[in-house]
């Protein structure tokens, strides 16, 4: 397989080489009433690709709630926007860059960050925070160290250089991602609510401006062939389809675009992401129900001999397309020139409703814009639930550990529960001077200077839960994200989803997808929050095997007063530790069962969304009232891990006493939703308890903070089950990720350095 099909007579076989089906090719002939030109075939192939057209997912995505009183912009634009009060809006979106990151981890991840940043600042918003959700294969898989180092360096290299703080994220390992890692990048921006820009072209005769980097040969068919087909051995040869990032140009583009958007010259603006010049032109024209004509002779080129086909399909980074009011060209160009960026008039808005492109005086492309967007194929793919049932877990077959202290140390040193410090210390979390809660907790928190409030952001998905039950598992993803916001003092506003699945042509994958959508929709209704943006990434398959279904949920919440937040660290003085919520821990789906016993059970823990929401609202209320400054949700690894994380974050030990009704390992490492730990000054415990009663949330006094050990006592047997020095546990907790990353493997590309 080469990077792009060579030019020749257009026929069905060339269409197939472009990733189109014979039926789709017949549709194209119908739309045009003639055989497409070579360039037109290229345009159809990218616009009708799964990546750009959402042809397999569109009918399902409609089931997600997309509106609400705070929504200023729902799905369908470059990013979604919600009202955050004080005349300000939060603009955000999460997007995948999975296949490029597997083939070329540094550039794949870097350009993933660059792309999502552009989606946000094209809305007129200044990017203020980044996050990312990363899934790697097994830690002992030969490619994992190389991919881990490269992806983390790429995210840092781009995000740090552009000057946007990375304030959170998640990293996990599972053999199911051995041949297809996931790199999901998220950006949050802030803008005045009345200054949100959209990508809706209008005004016949208005000029179309090409801005930013010159066009080169990189990324051709990234959207159609790399992102919209299964991975094979030879996919490695598609490295030339991976784009190369230039964060320096991006930082100039951000400043220049925001400066231009301060004025009233811009009608529409869109970044050239997947399918570059083609998709940005077509989508802006289609949304505005106008036509657009490009003069390809005017496109700034990196190499003079680029063909029109390559110009139309290039995915060179750091480029934008603007429609401006007639007569404003000079004013706008002057600003871009000041920032040292190319800015040329490359086309015009027409009334034909067609996407046209001419080169050397010849019209090479003339397609109705709607045929490339609204009239693109839509598929109701067949679905099939798995026929075989998973065997139920037999608890008696799981040996009970004799030394729970040693078990805790092993769990803390596991790849998925160990400290993520090695990762997040490679990201600048300070730039912008807004970060209140840095990475390492449940959610990042950034203040909003204009309002005195703050925004919390998190991304979550337990793909083991989703594999076991896509409906319940996806509800857990939403519930955990919400909990992670509540424990910082925030109330959820809206979410953005990144739906990473295998091939939609496999009925069981389509079934997973559909059930996940239903789970997300029902969970959103329970919290009364909408999905305002997102991305579907299908074809995450390698050698025929699909990844575990991974519907990543990126959620943003609002904190009314930036001075009233909480972190997972225990407070300095002695405090009582309370467990809020009634989640019943089980081993099914738990990290403990998977990591220590190599099993998953047949179902994830149960989920109770109404109870989750009551618990969350109680916790956020306690933080807003200033009663609680230390809170943490109990999730992966269970209660013992959650307590340990609070101790390790603060350097303050704890003593808790538990009354066991069943096995101690289930109580300590079993998982459930609906549980939050809080530390409360001794004098205010009864206040917390009465507020909890009023909210129908159960509470248990577990113990106290203090000392330099983690101690867990069996109350009935009056016996210490765990007694471990915090610093001993810390060294186990922190040794794992550096060890995984340092394993013998080739070096990724050089990280961007500098200050």
């Amino acid at each position, binding site marked *: 397989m080469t990077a792009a099909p060579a030019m020749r007579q257009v026929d069905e076989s060339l269409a197939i080489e472009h990733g189109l089906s014979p039926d789709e090719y017949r549709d194209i002939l119908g739309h045009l009433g003639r055989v497409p030109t070579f360039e037109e075939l290229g345009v159809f192939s990218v616009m009708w690709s799964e990546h750009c057209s959402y042809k397999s997912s569109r009918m399902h995505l409609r089931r997600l709630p997309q509106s609400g009183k705070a929504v200023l912009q729902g799905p369908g634009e470059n990013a979604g926007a919600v009202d955050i009060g004080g005349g300000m809006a939060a603009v955000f979106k999460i997007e995948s860059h999975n296949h490029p990151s597997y083939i070329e981890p540094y550039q794949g991840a870097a350009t993933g960050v660059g792309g999502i940043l552009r989606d946000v600042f094209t809305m007129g918003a200044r990017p203020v925070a980044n996050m990312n959700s990363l899934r790697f294969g097994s830690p002992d898989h030969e490619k994992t160290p190389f991919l881990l180092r490269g992806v983390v360096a790429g995210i840092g290299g781009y995000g740090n*250089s552009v000057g946007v703080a990375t304030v959170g994220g998640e990293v996990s390992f599972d053999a199911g991602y051995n041949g297809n890692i996931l790199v999901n990048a998220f950006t949050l921006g802030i803008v005045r609510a009345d200054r949100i820009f959209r990508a809706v072209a209008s005004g016949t005769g208005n000029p179309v401006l090409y801005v930013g980097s010159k066009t080169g040969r990189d990324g051709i068919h990234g959207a159609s062939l790399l992102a919209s087909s299964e991975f094979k051995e030879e996919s490695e040869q598609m490295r030339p389809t991976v784009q190369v990032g230039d964060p320096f140009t991006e930082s100039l583009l951000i400043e220049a675009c925001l400066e231009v958007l301060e004025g009233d010259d811009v009608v529409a603006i869109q970044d050239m992401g997947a399918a570059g010049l083609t998709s940005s032109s077509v989508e802006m024209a289609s949304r505005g129900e106008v036509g657009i004509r490009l003069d390809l002779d005017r496109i700034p080129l990196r190499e003079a001999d680029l063909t029109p086909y390559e110009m139309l399909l290039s995915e060179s980074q750091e480029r934008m397309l603007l429609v401006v009011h007639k007569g404003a060209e000079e004013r706008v160009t002057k600003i871009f020139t000041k920032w040292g960026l190319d800015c040329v008039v490359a086309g015009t808005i027409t009334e034909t409703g067609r996407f046209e492109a001419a080169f050397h005086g010849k019209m090479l492309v003339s397609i109705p814009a709607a045929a490339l967007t609204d009239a693109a194929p839509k598929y109701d793919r067949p679905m099939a639930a798995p026929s075989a049932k998973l065997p139920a877990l037999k608890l008696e077959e799981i040996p009970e550990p004799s030394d729970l202290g040693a078990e805790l140390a092993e769990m803390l040193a596991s790849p998925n529960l160990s400290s993520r410090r090695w990762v997040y210390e490679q*990201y600048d979390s*300070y*730039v912008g001077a807004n970060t209140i809660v840095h990475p390492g907790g449940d959610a990042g928190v950034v203040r909003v200077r204009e309002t005195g409030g703050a925004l919390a952001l998190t991304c979550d998905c337990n793909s083991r839960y989703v594999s076991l039950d896509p409906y319940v598992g996806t509800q857990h993803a939403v519930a955990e994200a919400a909990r992670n916001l509540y424990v910082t003092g925030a109330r959820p506003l809206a979410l953005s989803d990144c739906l990473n699945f295998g091939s939609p042509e496999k009925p069981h994958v389509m079934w997973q997808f559909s059930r996940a959508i239903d789970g997300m929709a029902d969970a959103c209704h329970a919290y009364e929050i909408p999905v305002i943006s997102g991305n579907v990434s299908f074809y995450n398959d390698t050698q025929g095997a699909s990844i575990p279904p991974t519907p990543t949920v990126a959620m943003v919440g609002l904190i009314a007063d930036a001075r009233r937040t909480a972190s997972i660290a225990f407070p300095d003085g002695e405090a009582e530790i309370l467990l809020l919520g009634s989640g019943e821990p089980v081993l099914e789906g738990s990290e403990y069962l998977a990591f220590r016993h190599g099993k998953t059970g047949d179902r994830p823990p149960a989920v109770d969304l109404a109870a989750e929401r009551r618990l969350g609202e109680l916790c956020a209320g306690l933080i807003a009232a200033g009663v609680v400054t230390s809170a943490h949700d109990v999730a992966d690894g269970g209660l013992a891990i959650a307590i340990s994380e609070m101790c390790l974050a603060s350097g303050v030990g704890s003593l808790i006493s538990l009354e066991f009704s069943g096995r101690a390992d289930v109580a300590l490492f079993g998982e459930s939703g609906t549980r939050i730990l809080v530390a409360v000054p001794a004098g205010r415990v009864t206040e917390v308890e009465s507020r909890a009663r009023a909210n129908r949330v159960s509470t248990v006094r577990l113990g106290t903070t203090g000392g330099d050990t983690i101690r867990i006592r069996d109350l009935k047997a009056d016996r210490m089950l765990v007694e471990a020095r915090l610093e001993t546990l810390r060294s186990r907790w922190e040794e794992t990720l550096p060890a995984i990353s340092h394993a013998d493997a080739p070096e990724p590309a050089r*990280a961007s*350095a500098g200050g």
Partner: protein
Amino acid sequence: MKWGVVAFPGSCDERDAAYAVGSVIGDDVAMLWHGDADTKGVDAIILPGGFSYGDYLRCGAMARFSPVMRAVAEHAKSGGPVFGICNGFQILCEAGLLPGALVRNRSLRFICQNVGVRVESTDTAFTAACEKGEVLSIPVKHGEGCFVASEGELERLEREGRIVFRYADGAPNGSLCDIAGVSNEAGNVVGLMPHPEHAVDPLLGSDDAVVLFRSVHAWLTKTKLRRQA
């Protein structure tokens, strides 16, 4: 007093530096554009952190040739305070206004963490209000912050009291002698690898570095008195 904060293309922390001296300290601030050889009559200049010109060559190697740096050098020569933070420190070394050089961290990785920074000299424009030996909590975030200099230079810096800041708990980047910041002979030009502009607000974790910016007030008063005498 009035500060000038230089904006190079690729600077990241220029707005944060302006926020620190403007909104937090309450002084006047002017942004200085890299293409203008004009310091707009400011009393003190900050070269902020970031990746000037992308830092695709050597950090700061391009920025030193920008027109504004001619004006910065003039300002420094006449005794005006200049504070180079992170990339700004790298630029001052490249421009020959400070000794030594900053090379890749020994770990070869970018590092972002809060560190303790010990004030070793109070004879500079940016430490005049500090107490010698006090340890300030300030974050570092850099890929090339390992300070190096020849043995002779290091000896001279030590002898002349021009090692202004040291990492209190060991250098996170491999800097020789745990050096976090140095000054020129007159003490008016100081380079610091950690980011004081990110340690001026308790809400964001620390306000330990406010004293560094306030020091300039004391320094300017002192030099004015000295000139009058």
